[in-house]
């Protein structure tokens, strides 16, 4: 719909690097970007789990999200600074 309104037949979404080149901002991730995201592995017995070290938003939201580990635990990503 948006493409039709704006007549953007050949449009494509810019990747993050392109967005930053046009709109400004940092190209490299800093520690602050990592500070926001961690993985939580829920133990196979359903109780408790373990936090990972810091990961990127992409890793938390897709790459590692839902991964099963050798001990049967499943990883899930968390990216808000103060949520359980």
């Amino acid at each position, binding site marked *: 719909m948006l493409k039709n309104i704006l007549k953007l037949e050949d449009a494509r979404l810019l990747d993050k690097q392109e967005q930053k080149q046009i709109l400004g901002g940092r190209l490299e991730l800093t520690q602050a970007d990592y500070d926001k995201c961690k993985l939580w592995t829920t133990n196979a017995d359903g109780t408790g789990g373990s936090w990972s070290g810091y990961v990127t938003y992409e890793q938390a939201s897709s790459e590692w999200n839902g991964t099963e580990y050798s001990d049967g635990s499943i990883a899930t990503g968390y990216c808000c*600074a103060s949520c359980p």
Partner: protein
Amino acid sequence: MKKTVSFCLLCLILFSCNSDSKTKKETTVKFVENVEKPIVNTNPVTFIVSNEMKNEYVSIYRNISFDTFSTEKHVYTKKANDTLQLDVNVGEKLFITSKFTAKDTLLVKNGDTIFLNLKDKKITITHKNAANIKSFKLKNAIIDSLTSPFYIIDYNAPFELQSDKYQKLNPIYPLRIHRENFKTKTADLEQLTNVLVDNYIMISNKYDSLSAKELSKVSYYKILKDELNQATFFELNRFYSYSKNKNIKELISSNLFFNKETIDQSTLYVKLNTFITKIVLDGKRIREKFKLKLDYKTAYDSVSSYIKDKKLLPLAKIVCINGDASQGASKEELITYIQQFKNEFPDNSYDDYLNSIEETYGLSKRFNIKDTDAIHLVDIKEKAYQFDEFLKKNKGKLVYVDIWASWCAPCRAAMPDSKKLAEIYKEKDIVFTYLSIDRNKSHWKKAAETEGIKNHPASFLATNYPKATFYKELKVKTIPRYLLFDKNGKLVHENAPGPDSDEIRNLLDTYITK
């Protein structure tokens, strides 16, 4: 070569003979002619700890089970010399660890005495009555080779675990799942299943015969047998979750895993959780933003279609309630669950489990105050207070409140600064107050100890968060959050600067003179 070929042929014959009997099973779980529960021997296991590393912990962990349900799963000490005791129901597998040493497995039984010595980053375990137990692995080279087309463990990408003050966590590795093969290589998967089950039966029989020969070691062999059964059950559930193979599903629900011994298995809680996760919920998880959660509520309602046994069904429902609680279900949801459970199972056989959930997640009246007008708190000794009274008691002093929780990483990262600030102003009339909004009481206590505020005179747990009007009016939805009350107990800064900032010092300096 000849021997290998003959062995493989023999295996194939055995598998083909066994496959029919294994796959023709019923899909729902029902049995049981229950046996009497053994009388619990209350003679505890004693740990005599000598710790030669100052301020480091020696930790003992237990698995969750219906026997350990209402007890602490983690006991620890950092004293130079200490004695810890655990009530063990006949026998149990425990894990000994420190920040420097990965978990060491220990089989114990009632009355055992264990000496633990932490020195030079190593724990030496001396088990006075240690039994020389033969244990066998479920998986062997053949099983590994048959498993590899379906999944492999990627040892190159270990999960980077956050460091822990109490233990060195064992490394875990991601599985690389070949999902397509689970769907297309059905015969290979069923062959793998049969080899695994045959190996399970063979080892299980070995434990039975060893147990019959060595009567003093019966409780140890029972633990090993229960764990073997659970490990096989878990692996088959893993196969099912990726393949949706009906024969494997039937095998999972068969009397191989649910029989007259099941109710007394030390691994029953874990088995039921696996069954709920993989079979009842079909491996599906619900997404909240991108967090993945198990839909224990749906499982609670539908598990009765899968488990018909009158003794197992309530236990499975307890697993659902506890599972949802540990995932962060609200107090209201948990109270509704528990009431529903009590209506369905009116006898009091399950009270211990329900009480434990109520206590742990703050549902008991003491921890779940309905009053919304006042701010209710408890201190580390669980003595109740109201925040208004606390302010009145401290009239004439500034009160700086640090709202935090055990699970809040930034709150805990700011704790050293908070303590530093308190040290700077220790001669002034300022009360530094720590208010945790944890739901899990034991998590709060443990974190308070770790952060060194366990015995702080103004360290509290909020018992009517988030219901109290105060939290709603101040929109205390994200933490860390800092509040400042003046000498008359009036809130003068509802979003005070954090303890690491220069602004807070300026603010305290200003108000202290007023």
